[in-house]
């Protein structure tokens, strides 16, 4: 995993504001998403994050790789 489980949870949570605000922002350029479409975009984003998180690490393509595999502990 590229990120700790807790980190993943937080990243997924951060998708919520991204999604609700994205809908407003897109409307400024006349892209009006329905609730269903927004949900689909959300599902796609979740899927992308999950794939990224669970993809085995392959070295150089991520600039933050060194910290990712340090298996961040939880401070106790």
């Amino acid at each position, binding site marked *: 995993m590229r990120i*700790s489980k807790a980190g993943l*949870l937080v990243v997924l*949570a951060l998708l919520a*504001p991204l999604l609700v605000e994205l809908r*407003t922002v897109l409307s400024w350029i006349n892209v*009006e998403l329905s609730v269903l479409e927004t949900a689909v975009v959300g599902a796609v984003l979740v899927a992308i994050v999950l794939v990224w998180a669970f993809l085995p690490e392959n070295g150089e393509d991520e600039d*933050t790789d060194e*910290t*990712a595999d340090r298996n*961040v502990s939880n401070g106790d």
Partner: protein
Amino acid sequence: MMTMSNAYIDDFPAEAKVIRAAFYSSFFALALGGVFGVIQTLHRTGYYRFIDSADYYTVLTAHGVFLVISFTIFFLVGIFTWAVTTSLDRGVEDLRFTWGWYGLMAIGITLSGVAILAGFTDATDISASVLFTFYAPLQGHPMFYLGLVLFVVGTWLAGVDWFRSWWAWKGENPDERIPLPTFMVLTTMLMWYIATLGVAAAILLFLLPWSLGWIETVNPLLTRTLFWFFGHPVVYFWLMPAYMMWYVLLPKVSGGKLFSDPLARVVFVLFLILSVPTGIHHQYLDPGIAEGFKFIAMTNTMFLLLPSLLTAFTVVASMEHGARQRGGTGYFGWLKALPWRDPVFTGMALAGLMFAAAGFSGMVNAGMNINYLVHNTFWVVGHFHLTVGTAVALTFMAVTYWFLPQVTGKALWSRSVALGQVVLWFVGMTFMSNAMHRAGLLGVPRRTAEPQYDGFEFEAAVGSIGELQAQIALGGILLTLSLVLFFANVIGTGLNGRSDDLPANEYAGTLSGPEDAPLVLDNLKLWTAIAIVLVIFAYTFPLLSIVDRGGLFGPELNPFPVSIESVTLLAFAVEHLAVGALESLSLPGLLEVIR
């Protein structure tokens, strides 16, 4: 007996008991407030209406008072007691006195709470459905006001308790700097003493005598202005303890140190000085206050952004320091090294993030001209659920996961549930508050049981009102679930046995310590004097002109008891008058026609 751990309860068993009592009182209020919160969310969005709409205002009063008066303030007196005793490393001077102020607060809020809840039954004629702002001409039962007075006096005595500790400590350590947590408590309390003068005057001189029938009328603009004299700084009374947690606990749980002790002191001094002379920014739309005074309040408000920006900087810098201590690297890569698994950390970090969003909507509220767009709409409710409802409430819930073991001596029931709880709050509040803000922009009013009108539809530029309602209801339900998880953890922890493997009672060290802070920062008398002068500047003329125009006790005004009978009576009277007027008008008209 040998103690195995260095938790707070091991060093200060008696004080831990008081703090526990304060916490449990706070949580009880949170539970009640939460129940009312979801009831009103489902009611006003139209999803589930099982109460009478006339009772909506009793629910809303209970939600407001229990959450922003009892939940927040009981919690903060708990952590202030912790902060003073821990940082001075001495117990309270007189334990009976400490229990005394706690008891006074408890009795006071019980009186007010009973007065509010009695509004649900017809068995008594007691009620106080006056909302947490208790604006005249809404009138509550005297017990409501009396309770508030006792509660506030309790907090004053709590302040005396902490000052006594500090004086005693200073006697023994004449040349030392005030430890940072104690400094924060003292500056906050000085601000609170000044601020509460407004509400004390409003209640003792006007509202209480009026509700007792001793005086006939009050000047509603005067009592409102006195309310906001207190009503703005009270938000800092909630916020400064949350800031204290961000300064002294967050760096520690991030694995680092506080970036700068002097900067933290500057921030608290700025709050002491600037919190009070800004209250009129809640009254931009009140007729009877000259624009110029409103402009002064706006200017002071904009200056108040400064300490919040300083806080954002210091807190993020401390977190980054912690992350790098834990091995984080890279421009943003250090974020990954933060202890996201720890609910104390994650809760506070998410609370801080939401506070940044709240800062933006707060700027809109603070601007005199754009305020007109959002005033009294649902936008405002969206805003303060990010500030007090998240920046403060979520921080308090998150630090509970650290404090509860400290003051009970029991291990936390479940860290995973705790983590889920803080994340769920964040997600729920995102949905609820985003939709509230947007609904407000469409003109949807706050404080309304049924925001639907015949022959009028709110129009949404994007999406629809129905979607916004759904989003609000969804958010409200997630928040309620989050509260359920929170209480599960509090109760589960209470049922645990004593643990002797608890983290030690410590707070964050500093990178730049008090020795770098100019001595003048600790001159509390100076800052208090400046704060008072600014208040005199900001309020003398507005108050004088309000009294001049509306009279100290107001023009003729009949109290308006909040009950549905009086509304029907009033409606009947208006109808009667109108029909009478029409008749007298139309009779000559008719005669004319006949002729």
